């Protein structure tokens, strides 16, 4: 099986990585770049724990080949805070108590960040629709939805 050398931008840093052709973006982030904030949940595009921004849009990184990412711009949960300052969604989810075990949180933060980028003032149903691909087994979602509303107000 082959390897490919790809160059991409991850959290504003240019990285050049040799990846096996069957490696997913998720595996590359975790195993090659040690960015373990992005989680591996279902490996089937259902749970959203692996959600990252690819060229500004959220995708399930378990469903993207690393080899496809030549030239791509990736943002993971590690890239949301800027200059030591947590992003609005990160601050809001702490404030509302939207984190319990924390496994879904990185994906939730990415999906919520993408939602607020395309719709600065979403309704509750728009928030719930945008987060439908991010499963949480702890919180019951109420405080996560509250966090997105709070972030929209900040």
């Amino acid at each position, binding site marked *: 099986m082959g390897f490919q050398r790809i160059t991409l931008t991850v959290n504003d840093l240019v990285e050049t990585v040799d990846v096996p052709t069957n490696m997913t973006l998720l595996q590359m982030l975790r195993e090659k770049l040690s960015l373990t904030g992005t989680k591996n949940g279902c490996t089937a595009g259902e749970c959203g724990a692996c959600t990252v921004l690819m060229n500004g849009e959220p995708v399930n990184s378990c*469903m993207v080949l690393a080899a496809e990412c030549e030239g791509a711009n990736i943002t993971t949960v590690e890239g949301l805070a800027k200059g030591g300052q947590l992003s609005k969604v990160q601050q809001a989810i702490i404030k509302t108590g939207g984190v319990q075990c924390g496994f879904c949180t990185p994906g939730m933060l990415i999906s919520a960040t993408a939602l607020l980028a395309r719709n600065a003032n979403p309704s509750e149903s728009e928030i719930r629709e945008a987060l439908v691909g991010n499963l949480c087994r702890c919180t019951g979602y109420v405080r996560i939805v509250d966090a997105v509303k709070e972030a929209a107000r900040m």
Partner: protein
Amino acid sequence: MINPHPGLPELEYLKPTSLIEASKFLADHAGEARPFSGGTDCFVRLRDGIWKTGTLVDVKQLEGVKDLTFDAKKGLTIGAAVTMNKVASNADVLKHYPNLAEAARSVASYQLRNRATIIGNICNASPAGDTIGTCMILDGVLNVHGVNGFYTVPLSNFFLGPGKTVLKPGDIVVSISFPIPPKGLVGTYKKLGRNTIGDLSIVGVAVLGYPTAETKSGYRFRIALASVAPTPYESFKAEAVLAESKITAEVISEAGVAAMDSVNPIDDVRGSARYRKFMVRNLTREAVAEVWKKISK
């Protein structure tokens, strides 16, 4: 122990630069290579061991696959690499084919729709494909590139069975074209999942209607059903009911029953055959009534 997070099996990844090169490679490696765009179905099947594929041939950089164009005379063309989210948010689609935008929006989650494509949904030929019924009743025609060049296939002749289509080794569906919709067209897609949004369909019903002088009722309805037959299925019997007599609440109910009687679904983990049949009746009635309310105003 079963690994709950299987990686992808060993495979090669090829990024051809032209359709001719891609078709030739796929034909020369029939059974080992397959075209690949968003991967949302493909990766699941590879991980589950259902597909044994040696090479994934990425089609996303080939000519014509990124097109999403509308022409007031020719209609709409959607390329193979155009994602569901792009279709659902495109101004021309929302204006002229809003039922297609609605069907695209009903698929899975926002992040999955950033990779999933209409053409992928069609080529996977799942009886549950949410966008296929709407594409069928909008008279979609597939533009296919094979080893002997381009040819077209109407969607109504495309499916042979679950996961089976008329495509031959080397064929790549480049795009789907839709004619200008009839004047006054209204459509909707009703989907029953285990959750309100985000799930696969237990039953899906795509309905459209428009006024016409060609039927006794003065209207023509098209009704396509998902997850209730081996292939996406258009219920001509239910359509005939709505063409032949003046449309009333009773006739709409009758059409729902005709739709139910025209299908033979299976029992599976998502629902029993009996339940599916009743849901076909109810959702057809609901969808036709909704369309009727809008076109009869």
